């Protein structure tokens, strides 16, 4: 991308205009661009997120019904186990005293599954991104400090990482969310507390490499302070790595939240896909063969998680070109 610009040695004036904002941030931005230009899958993943994000933001507008309140028919009874209109035998609904407009039918107590699905995207993305952000930030900072300063800082932080590695993940989340009042935030925090470990370690080792590179010594020789070296020289080079782990963290977070909700340790007042599945299974959707209730949430989880994977792999391919497909 950069080369076209430089192809014809443009006059000094233009150059001087350009190089002034030529900065780490710009480079970083370009790395990110590169990721999505180079890797179609990564781009695909990004699109998935984009779509779900829009859905999440406008959920109340998109969702035809309130996801929590059961829908009632003319007699004021709940419209239970209504099939999706495209599956239901015609006329059945009139007989039951309602008009079937349900894209994915209703639950066993008459909640609109489609609306739940829409609202589910909210908690999924909320969990995914907040956890990812937390993980990336903690991991990066830890990695930077441990890697750059070494010695005791390193020792302590890495022992902490070992401890984090020693704590069984799912059980920890379960226990925490069972002990504190059910809320996705507890899940997010619990995950952040453990998940930074990989990011931290990898970034640390990366820092160890970079800090030995000549341009860092050069900075030190020309008198740059530690903070300057860390944040001006090293940090930008490892940020893509944090993104990489961030995007994987999104995936894990969403999966974990789903599992925890499925085991019934989540807040029933905030619809999440995991909760929907839990509801479905406890309401015996399988025996009802209500696949229109079971399959969609699962697919949504799968999609978002894969989006995370795709983006992560996109970064991998740019950061570790060895893996690049030729």
């Amino acid at each position, binding site marked *: 991308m950069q080369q076209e610009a430089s192809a014809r040695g443009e006059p000094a004036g233009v150059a001087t205009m350009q190089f002034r904002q030529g900065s780490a941030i710009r480079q970083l931005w370009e790395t990110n661009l590169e990721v999505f230009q180079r890797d179609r899958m990564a781009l695909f993943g990004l699109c998935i997120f984009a779509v779900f994000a829009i859905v999440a933001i406008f959920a109340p507008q998109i969702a035809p019904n309130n996801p929590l309140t059961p829908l009632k028919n003319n007699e004021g009874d709940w419209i*239970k186990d209504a099939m999706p209109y495209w599956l239901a035998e015609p006329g059945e609904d009139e007989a039951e005293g309602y008009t079937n407009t349900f894209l994915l039918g209703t639950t066993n107590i008459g909640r609109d599954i489609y609306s739940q699905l829409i609202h589910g995207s909210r908690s999924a993305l909320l969990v995914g991104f907040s956890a990812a952000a937390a993980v990336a930030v903690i991991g990066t900072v830890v990695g930077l400090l441990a890697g750059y300063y070494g010695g005791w800082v390193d020792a302590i932080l890495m022992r902490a990482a070992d401890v984090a590695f020693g704590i069984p993940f799912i059980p920890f989340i379960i226990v925490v969310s069972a002990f504190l009042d059910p809320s996705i935030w507890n899940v997010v925090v619990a995950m952040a507390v453990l998940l930074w470990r990989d990011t931290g370690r990898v970034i640390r080792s990366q820092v160890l490499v970079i800090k030995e590179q000549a341009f860092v010594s050069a900075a030190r020789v020309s008198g740059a302070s530690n903070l300057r070296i860390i944040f001006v020289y090293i940090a930008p080079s490892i940020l893509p790595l944090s993104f990489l782990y961030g995007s994987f963290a999104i995936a894990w977070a969403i999966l974990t939240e789903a599992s925890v909700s499925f085991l*019934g340790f989540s807040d*029933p007042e905030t619809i999440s896909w995991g909760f929907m599945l839990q509801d479905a299974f406890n309401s015996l959707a399988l025996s009802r063969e209500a696949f229109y209730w079971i399959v969609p949430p699962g697919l949504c989880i799968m999609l978002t998680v894969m989006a995370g994977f795709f983006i992560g792999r996109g970064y991998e391919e740019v950061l570790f070109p060895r893996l690049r497909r030729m």
Partner: protein
Amino acid sequence: MSRKLVSIAVLAMMLLVLALPVTSQTMGEAVPPIIVHSVTQAERPIEYETTRLVVENMRELGLEVEHRAIPWAQLIHEIWYSRTTDSAVADRPFQMTHWRMVGRPERSDPDEFTYNLFHSSVRDGGYNFIGYNNPEYDALAEAQRVEVADREARLELICEAQQIIRNDMVNAYFIHPLTPQVVNTANFNPDSITTQAGIGVHNFWTWIGIEPTGDDKTLITSTTSFLQAFNPLEISGDAPSRVTEMTWDRLMRINPIGVPEPWAAESVVWEDSLNVVVTLRAGMKWHDGEDVQSDDAAYSFEAALAGTTQTDEDGKEEFRPEAPDYHPFARNVADIEIIDDLSLRFTLHTPSAAFETSSLAKLNLIPKHIWEPIINDLLERDDADVDSIQEEIPIGSGPFKYVAFDVNEFVFLEAFDDHWARPKIDAWIMNVLPNQEATLGQIQAGEMNFLWEWPGDPGVLQSIVDDNEHLDLFSAISIGMNYFAFNVRYAPFDDVTFRQAIAHTIPQEFIIDNIFNGLAAPADSFVSAALEYWRQCEDLPTYDFSIDGARALLEGAGYSWDDEGRLHYPGN
């Protein structure tokens, strides 16, 4: 003189006039936010949804309501320890909670509920956690216990008790579940299945009476709850008591219509209201071959009574029973006298109508030669009680005997051939299957042939039965019931009218139709409709579902609503 009168009269008049505007409506402060407890959606969807429904209706009354859904274990604990302001687990006492009582054979005598749920003596530590305190009622509750001889008279008392509770609306009962059970009629003859009032088909009489049609004479059932103990001196839940009642005989058993009748006892004869002579059947054997004798029977009660008296730090004497679960049922026994090998006499402290039901028909007969050493040992130690005991091979004298038991996995019993009422099936197996889908899968696949416990959506069960002709659905009104309990100690629930108003916000029919799919009976009392005898009272007051009704009621009592529509207490 007359002037005095006049002046007094005038004064009185003036006072009246002055008083008038005061007594006329002024708005009190707003009713504070209310928290309503229930179990989680994951654990029992039905109860969760019901509560949700009611909470929404309560909001329509202009109340600020929060629905707090927590796991059962946590719920029961929270309610139990936050009954008063010096709450051990919450920053304030609980206010209102969804609750349920399960049916058990011994509960087919109204005594347990009548007394333990409402008597003021069990208000602080016991099960009267709602804090109901009504001397008039206490009197009744005690009276019906003593009324041994005259059943009619006792019925009177029970009815009156029900009236009071219903009027005071201490607990807002709304349904007795119809416990649905599915039997694989390809394996069993449906006519051989007994239905016990308030319990359903999964009862002792069925276990011994049910006739296998094929050569496979094994009954396989399952429970979604827990199988924690195999112990004649411990009550650790519904499923385990099924097992103990089959493995250990009892002097009497509650018969299908809910009345105790002699079982291991040949006869039970009341000499007077305090003395009863029990004579054992001849020739009964323990599963290890020993004879069952009167001293075993006696010891069964002594074991339940056994315990040590300790003085705690503030010098208070405290009795610690070794069998805490059964001690209450034996507590009334003052003395046991062995007459001969087969007969013995019980002497009670106080006359008790429920003695047969809740003692003779409740305590398991345990072999003295096995338990005496154990109990004596326990009496030495103060760090453990019978709950910490698990026999290697449990020995009883019941119609079924132990084959294998894997905690929270399964129980495997086989018919005891030397029993005088040998069951028609050869083996009885109970699996623990917390996963309801699995349960359904197994009953259909034939991996299981008797589904006796179903916490899930009854509608699904119905449809399963419709799809498989070899499955039959049985259901009976349970002794148990679902209701909302109010903590009557504190405002706003200390006000009868308010409670009654809340009762009006419970859409009973709707719940039965929509949430229970019709598999529930409307409830209005702690005595289930299943116990026909004890329901022969004049009708109890009804509280139809009507938000307006509730509003009217409150208005009448001086409650009022502000501009935002929030409910306020009556003025002064």
